[in-house]
């Protein structure tokens, strides 16, 4: 009798696991449809400086899918929570060469490459997997726009900047494929599934 119940339960359980949706991730953002082609939203060219004071451009990421976020070191509000979630992503994919993490400071005046280096060291992460980028403030805020992240200076906001805690998943063609609210661990659970899904596209 018992064995039947267990079998039925196992079958039910396996049915649940089949529920995952196998359709590919959409390409997010506005699509311009011309006569011949659909033009998708794309992350534009950029050139920033990482924690080792080296330039990083799109070409350094051309074979990678990457997860980005925006933060600043003295941030008293949501940043540490988002960093904790970024660490989850890092821990899961740190050994997968395809995946990188890209954190942009929105406070380049204070968060110099040297400070970002120390910050990375305290996070115990591998600099070749997770880059911390700084640069011209205007360019950083512009690229935040391209990732659909609200980020701007606001003297009234805690720490002097107002920004959202979004985590963004971008593919090798610079298309945005998924978002997560970095302050919400359950949303990040789904995001990890989305990253796996995108990786399937590169599995061949």
């Amino acid at each position, binding site marked *: 009798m018992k064995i039947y119940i267990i079998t039925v339960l196992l079958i039910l359980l396996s049915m649940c696991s089949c529920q995952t949706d196998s359709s590919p991730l959409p390409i997010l953002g506005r699509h311009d449809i011309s006569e011949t082609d659909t033009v998708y939203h794309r992350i534009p060219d950029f050139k920033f400086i990482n924690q080792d004071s080296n330039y990083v451009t799109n070409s350094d990421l051309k074979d990678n899918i990457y997860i980005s976020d925006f933060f600043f070191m003295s941030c*008293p509000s*949501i940043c*540490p*929570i988002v*960093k*904790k979630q970024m660490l989850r992503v890092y821990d899961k994919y740190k050994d997968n060469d395809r995946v990188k993490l890209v954190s942009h400071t929105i406070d380049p005046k204070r968060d110099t490459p040297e400070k970002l280096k*120390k*910050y990375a060291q*305290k*996070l115990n992460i591998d600099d070749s997997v997770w880059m911390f980028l700084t640069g011209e403030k205007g360019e950083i805020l512009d690229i935040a726009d391209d990732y659909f992240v609200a980020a701007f200076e606001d003297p009234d906001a805690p720490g002097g900047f107002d920004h959202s805690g979004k985590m963004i998943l971008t593919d090798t063609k610079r298309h945005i494929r998924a978002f997560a609210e970095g302050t919400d661990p359950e949303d990040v659970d789904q995001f990890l599934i989305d990253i796996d899904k995108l990786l399937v596209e590169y599995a061949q």
Partner: protein
Amino acid sequence: MRNKLILAFGISAIVSMIFMSCDYVNYKQGQGLYEANCVTCHMQDGSGVAELYPSLNNMQSSKTYFEAIPCIIRNGLNRQESVIEMVGLQHLSEVEINNIVNYLVNDMNKLKQEQTLQQTSSILLKCK
């Protein structure tokens, strides 16, 4: 049959009471204040973020350490080796600080070390 049912209910009630008492929080106010002022950096469970934001949930029973907490809450902390400093939370009163300390020590860390308001007040007077 009915007796068995009653017994089953009774046992499950007792078991669930035991489980609930494990999660019982003595310093509710302290917990609320911790959630309002500290979780963004030290996390809900006190686990912190790597070495950037220290964890608060594995305190050892040490009088000197407990005595340091009220001053850290009020004046912040900027150790030589740290990358990020903690800015003091000047708006918290003595009573609130005392509540937070007791929540941290007694509830989060399950150490039986109640700190009285008088103790916290005299510690705060001597902060550097």
